[in-house]
């Protein structure tokens, strides 16, 4: 279980996270939604220790990762897998080497077994016989799937998805959604997904949390979020251009153009 309490992070004078609280139950997928630039990426980068928050605590099964030194963090990070927005495949290596990277690094399997293990991981994301291809030769959807295979290679129990469907066509986006759901069902991972794609959020989420102005303003099941009474959440999930989120900037525009 992941429990986040009072998480704050600022960049210069810009406050991105402002005392955020979020609980991610074990074996469930919690989807964090929110507009672009509201700090969703910052949230999961803090969770995996890529960014150090200014205040707050992030408890992974009761252990606070913020107070850990680099060596302890490395140990805890082995429990994490992360799918990056642009897949972030190592472009100097072929697909097989990408997926095998962490296996070789941690010496999890003898060298002669690695090819086989990699093929198995790739088959879990519906790919085969592409180990020799370079990342530059892959389409966007394939890159994401290879990135996912790489993220699950070390058998993590926590998966973080950074906008898994962004930039994909609707069919490929749904393929990724299915993969996320099936990974949760087959290997029982706990996951946090950040997205602004509501179709994807409804499909893959056990819980949806809305991030707005540095705080989680509402958490609920997909059905609860769909029928929410909170005007801010309602505007976002229905994708309306007018409402409380855009009101401030609209007023500003009106003020300036007057």
């Amino acid at each position, binding site marked *: 279980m992941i429990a986040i309490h009072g998480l704050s992070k600022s960049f210069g004078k810009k406050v991105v996270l402002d005392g955020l609280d979020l609980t991610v139950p074990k074996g469930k997928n919690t989807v964090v939604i929110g507009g672009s630039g509201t700090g969703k990426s910052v949230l999961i980068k803090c969770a995996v220790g890529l960014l150090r928050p200014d205040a707050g605590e992030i408890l992974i099964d009761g252990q606070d990762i913020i107070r850990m030194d680099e060596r302890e963090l490395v140990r805890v990070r082995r429990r994490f*897998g992360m799918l990056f927005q642009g897949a*972030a495949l190592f472009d100097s290596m072929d697909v097989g080497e990408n997926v095998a990277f962490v296996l070789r690094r941690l010496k999890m399997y003898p060298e002669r077994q690695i090819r086989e293990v990699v093929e198995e991981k790739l088959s879990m994301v519906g790919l085969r016989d592409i180990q020799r291809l370079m990342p530059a030769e892959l389409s966007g959807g394939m890159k994401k799937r290879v990135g996912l295979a790489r993220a699950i290679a070390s058998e993590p129990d926590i998966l973080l998805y950074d906008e898994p469907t962004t930039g994909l066509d609707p069919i490929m986006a749904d393929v990724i959604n299915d993969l996320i759901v099936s990974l949760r069902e087959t290997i029982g991972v706990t996951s946090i997904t950040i997205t602004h794609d509501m179709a994807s959020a409804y499909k893959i989420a056990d819980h949806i949390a809305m991030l707005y102005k540095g705080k989680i303003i509402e958490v609920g099941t997909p059905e609860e979020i769909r029928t929410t009474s909170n005007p801010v959440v309602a505007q976002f999930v229905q994708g309306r251009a007018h409402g409380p989120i855009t009101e401030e900037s609209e007023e500003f525009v009106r003020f300036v153009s007057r």
Partner: protein
Amino acid sequence: MTDPAAEKKNGVVRLSELLGERVYAMVIDLGAIFTLFTQVVSSVLRPPSEIRNIVKQMEEVGIRSMPVVLVTATFTGMVLALQSYSGFQRFGATSFVGSVVALSITRELGPVFAGLMVSGRVGASMAAELGTMKVTEQIDALVTLATNPVKYLVVPRVVAATLVLPVLVVFADLLGIVGGYFVSVHLLGANPYVYIAKTYQYLEFKDIYTGLVKASVFGMLIALISCHHGFVAEGGAEGVGRATTRAVVASSMMVLISDYFMTSFMF
């Protein structure tokens, strides 16, 4: 905007502000590079071994840079012979051309020109590669795959550059002297036996090894500076371009600056 402080600023204030900002940024950079250095030192011997990456980088820094370094060294030796011959002719000391070429090449020009060429070739490619990895989140991906990016990316580059630059300079020294010999003997008609004798006469072992020590330090500085600028790159392709420029400029300048201080310390 009606910020009263902004209106009052005159040229002198603005100039010193600009200067201050530059100096401040430079101090920040130097601090970060030193921190990177300590991280490299503390993780260089920790397992897992990066020997495979070190060898790969040695090929990149050493073998691939060999042609450009050798051409530079040869022509430096040749022009040095030409210049000192025409200069020394004025007071009839042309027999010393061999000594001048050998000493200048081994003590100064071999290491410095090799350092500058490697700054341009290798520094740029390191900053561009690491910068691209940074802006495409590949460095973050390394971290999530239980890998320390400094150990995996910076250590091999720094170790390889430190070890390989002296080797490059050995060849640069050799070809520089050969270039000087060729011009003196075959184009200017110097006596080959006198030339070789004069080359040996004043050349001490110290001249050569101080040059190689310098080369080693240059290699380390170039790799550290270039990796640092790659690591802090942000903002897409433009950011990578800026990081590359900064890496080349900073490492070339650092080669020349550190050269002065090492020379004053060694001799």
